[in-house]
């Protein structure tokens, strides 16, 4: 008892500092975005009254809906490729003996610690018309003329996958780590074939990892505007580009704010799905 009283000033100070920071720099700014999204665009002051839902209506205007859906498609494709590469990768990684595993994990996060812009730029060196990949393919006689690789949607996908792959692998790796060998053996003993074991045991048990990975990849894949700028020939392929343009070029703040709120809601939906899958898993385990 005495101690908690003695700690009161310290405790109060810490709590005020932390709460203050988060209210001031997280809650308040987010409220501002919500506010801006229901205001009216004003060419000279950015936003003004009256309040309305025009920005949201605009978002569902077929014109912009197409842009949004296309961005979603790009992000989904990126996520899918990351999953297809990452799932077997994480599984294989979890089977490597422990000592080498640490080294391999280390090697996996080294690229993550290297400036992402610079890495995107390196991809440009490889994909360019006169770049390394084309020269290599041509000298091998696979193609006669350089293929158009840079400034395509494909190049943007490659860039996004390259930047985001570790974010898919790490959560998957951790669920595979927890996947106990005896569970698989038990399934086998009960007469399940490989495919049945995979479908009925492995997939459900690794689902939280899949969803965590999807969350960590899908959302950045919609926002990383510099990837299309560098590898996509400045096309607007992501919602991130549209949002950035609305704020920094076209000055349509309500619209940009509405688009970001939709992005945030997408995240909330994913997190909800993630929790749900975890909870269900917990119930089944109990």
């Amino acid at each position, binding site marked *: 008892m005495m101690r908690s009283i003695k700690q009161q000033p310290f405790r109060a*100070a810490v709590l*005020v*500092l932390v709460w*203050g*920071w988060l209210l*001031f720099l997280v809650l308040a700014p987010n409220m501002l975005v919500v506010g801006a999204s229901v205001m009216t665009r004003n*060419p*000279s002051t*950015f936003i003004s009254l009256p309040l309305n839902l025009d920005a949201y209506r605009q978002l569902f205007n077929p*014109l*912009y809906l*197409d*842009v949004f859906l*296309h961005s979603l498609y790009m992000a989904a494709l990126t996520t899918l490729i990351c999953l297809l590469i990452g799932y077997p990768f994480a599984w294989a990684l979890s089977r490597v003996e422990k000592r080498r595993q640490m080294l391999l994990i280390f090697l996996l996060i080294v690229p993550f610690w290297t400036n992402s812009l610079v890495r995107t730029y390196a991809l440009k060196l490889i994909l*360019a*018309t*006169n770049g390394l990949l084309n020269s290599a393919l041509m000298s091998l006689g696979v193609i006669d003329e*350089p293929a*158009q690789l*840079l*400034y395509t*949607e494909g190049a943007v996908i490659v860039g996004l996958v390259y930047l985001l792959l570790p974010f898919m692998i790490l959560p998957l790796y951790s669920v595979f780590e927890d996947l106990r060998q005896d569970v698989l053996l038990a399934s086998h003993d009960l007469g399940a074939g490989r495919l049945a074991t995979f479908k009925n045991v492995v997939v459900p048990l690794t689902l939280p990892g899949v969803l965590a990975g999807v969350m960590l990849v899908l959302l950045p894949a919609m926002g990383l505007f510099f990837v299309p700028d560098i590898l996509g*020939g*400045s*096309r*607007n*392929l992501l919602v991130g*580009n*549209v949002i950035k*343009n609305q*704020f*920094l*070029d*076209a*000055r*349509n703040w309500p619209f940009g704010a509405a688009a970001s709120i939709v992005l945030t809601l997408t995240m909330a939906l994913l997190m909800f799905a993630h929790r749900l899958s975890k909870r269900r898993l917990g119930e089944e385990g109990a």
Partner: protein
Amino acid sequence: MKKLALAGILALGLTGCSSDDPQVLNLYNWSEYMPQEVLTRFEDETGIKVVYTTYDSNEAMYARLKLLDESAAYDLAVPSTYYVSKMRNEGLLLPIDQSKISGFDQLDPELTGLDIDPSNQFSVPYLWGTTGIGVDTADIAGEPVTAWEDLWDERFKGKVNLTNDMREVFHMSLRVLGYPGNSTDPQQIEEAYEKLTELMPSVRTFNSDAPRMPFLEGEADVGMIWNGEAVMGKESMEALEYVYPEEGVIAWLDSFVIPKNAKNPEAAHQFISFVLQPEIAALISEDIGYATPVLSARELLDDEVAGDRASYPTPEDMVNAEFQTDIGDEALQVYAKYWEKLKSGL
């Protein structure tokens, strides 16, 4: 406590702030639009440090200036043609004291006193130029390119560069359709958009940071380019030609302006005077390939530069040339809508 923490951080910020030095000039300019040598010489001569930040479109420059309106961030900017009148009308600019600008009388009378700023109270011309067609003559076969229309040619599929500038791209398309480049008619703008969607499969990239680069890198063979970029590109790629399209080039005049809340307008005036010196103006024109409005500088130019039709067009080249004008916010929103969609490649 929150305030205290904030104060602490602010104090920390002050010690970390490297720009305490009052003699700094924040210059906001297009990418690659001022030779480093000019900046270095200005710094050596005056002791004023130049912080050079860049933009790739008038829209971006304008939005950022409005955004940072209160914080007095920029001392000098270089908007194109009608953006001068737009910013002037909105009260975003400080008047320029012509008595502090030496060399103003040396400017081409055809480029001063224009409608955008009748008595040059707010702007001083820096360079002028055109947006035309760049052609990599080594890489294309067949008929020579003479018109904007030719960009739609099948043989250029996947090889066209466009500037990342909404107004310029629509200007081009409107001219191909025979409409005025500054159209405000939603019908015409939509038609121009439809026309551009036909071009999109051919478009390789949008580049307004350095439109010569896609040509040099072999990504583009033909497309929109600024004349100065074509001149600079030719230095490392002999085959790069600048073509004045039949429908008419897009002409522009870039002027120095001082934003309303500039922190160091004195230095801004000094810098303008420095750049207007015939010797410096000639150096800039030779180095980056655009035409200088300083008449006495033109006499100092190399014959090769002065005689280069790309930098200094003949009257015939400019027959259908059109300057861009302010089209108002309403039309701008129409353009912006289609531009977003166009750039999504849909």
